[in-house]
């Protein structure tokens, strides 16, 4: 009875199956979907938790870092796992939350060498990375492979989320043409992060992935949703496709992923204790 759902699945997902936009058909779409979370830090933690809870069928998680004590103030899925690889720790969390989800944990960096092949295998990406070269690399791989992605970024009390949909609206490079000069933006290690901030931004990114799979609602394509936790305000900035974008315009400068385009400058990355 009740289609192909087990009684346990009917109970687990009952509160979202009831939603008119989800139903049994939507739940089946979620169970058949594949989402890649790049970075299992603060943004990744909350995104991973809610994507797994909703029953995204295959969750790829890529992170090369180890869990450190200073992560636990905001990276809520890694409790009890200090010293363990974040990818493995996240995998354990998902398995204990929802056995419907197949987790593929990659304990490696998202790199120019693996980017396109990685992205190709998934329906939607969550950018939970913490540095500009990786933001651009994720964007470029998604542009070439024509895949959607929700990007997020946080610092101190502020953050934003935006979503890029292939051939529709701006890409990340249209919005952020080039990374700021080295040293202009302090690292999270220097500036600090209010712990709930990645939770809020990461869950916005997860909801973008879920709605994309369900094919419902409005997404953040062409919109930057900005949040300030100190003022407790949200505001929106609109962004348009850049006619001279170096990757998604009609005459792009970037036509393939070359490692030299994604080199980290020394101050752009937080070092051993990444902030996101």
């Amino acid at each position: 009875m009740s289609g192909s759902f087990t009684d346990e699945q009917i109970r687990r997902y009952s509160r979202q199956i009831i939603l008119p936009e989800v139903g049994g058909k939507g739940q089946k779409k979620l169970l058949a979907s594949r989402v890649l979370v790049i970075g299992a830090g603060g943004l990744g933690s909350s995104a991973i938790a809610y994507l797994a809870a909703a029953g995204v069928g295959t969750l790829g998680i890529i992170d090369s870092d180890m869990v450190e004590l200073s992560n636990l103030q905001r990276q809520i899925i890694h409790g009890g796992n200090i010293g363990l690889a974040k990818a493995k720790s996240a995998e354990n969390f998902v398995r204990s939350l929802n056995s419907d989800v197949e987790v593929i944990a990659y304990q490696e960096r998202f790199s120019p060498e693996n980017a396109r092949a990685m992205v190709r295998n998934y329906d939607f990406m969550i950018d939970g990375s913490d540095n500009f070269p990786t933001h651009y690399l994720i964007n470029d791989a998604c542009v070439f492979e024509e895949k959607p992605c929700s990007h997020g970024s946080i610092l101190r009390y502020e953050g934003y989320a935006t979503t890029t949909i292939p051939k529709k609206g701006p890409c990340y490079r249209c919005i952020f043409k080039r990374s700021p000069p080295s040293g202009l933006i302090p690292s999270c290690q220097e500036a600090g992060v209010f712990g709930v901030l990645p939770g809020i931004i990461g869950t916005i990114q997860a909801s973008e992935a879920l709605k994309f799979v369900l094919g419902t609602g409005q997404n953040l394509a062409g919109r930057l949703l900005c949040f300030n936790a100190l003022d407790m305000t949200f505001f929106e900035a609109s962004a348009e496709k850049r006619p001279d974008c170096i990757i998604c315009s009609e005459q792009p400068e970037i036509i393939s992923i070359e490692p030299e385009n994604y080199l980290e400058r020394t101050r752009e990355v937080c070092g051993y204790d990444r902030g996101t």
Partner: protein
Amino acid sequence: MTEELDLRCEVCPYTFVKTKLKMEEMAAGEELTILLDDSAATANVSRSLKSEGHEILDLKSVSCGVWQIVVKKA
């Protein structure tokens, strides 16, 4: 053709979740007969079906503590 769904011993919200999943498998115009053993659940399922646009053709107590809803899929 009339489908049947026995939801006696089932509780809210699963009464409606199972009804909704059954309705999704049916074609527009098909009818479903649902059996329930709780008056509140009967009212809730009936109300939820209406709010999703379906037509309640019949709602009655068929024996002591058992209610029947006949609904036509929109």
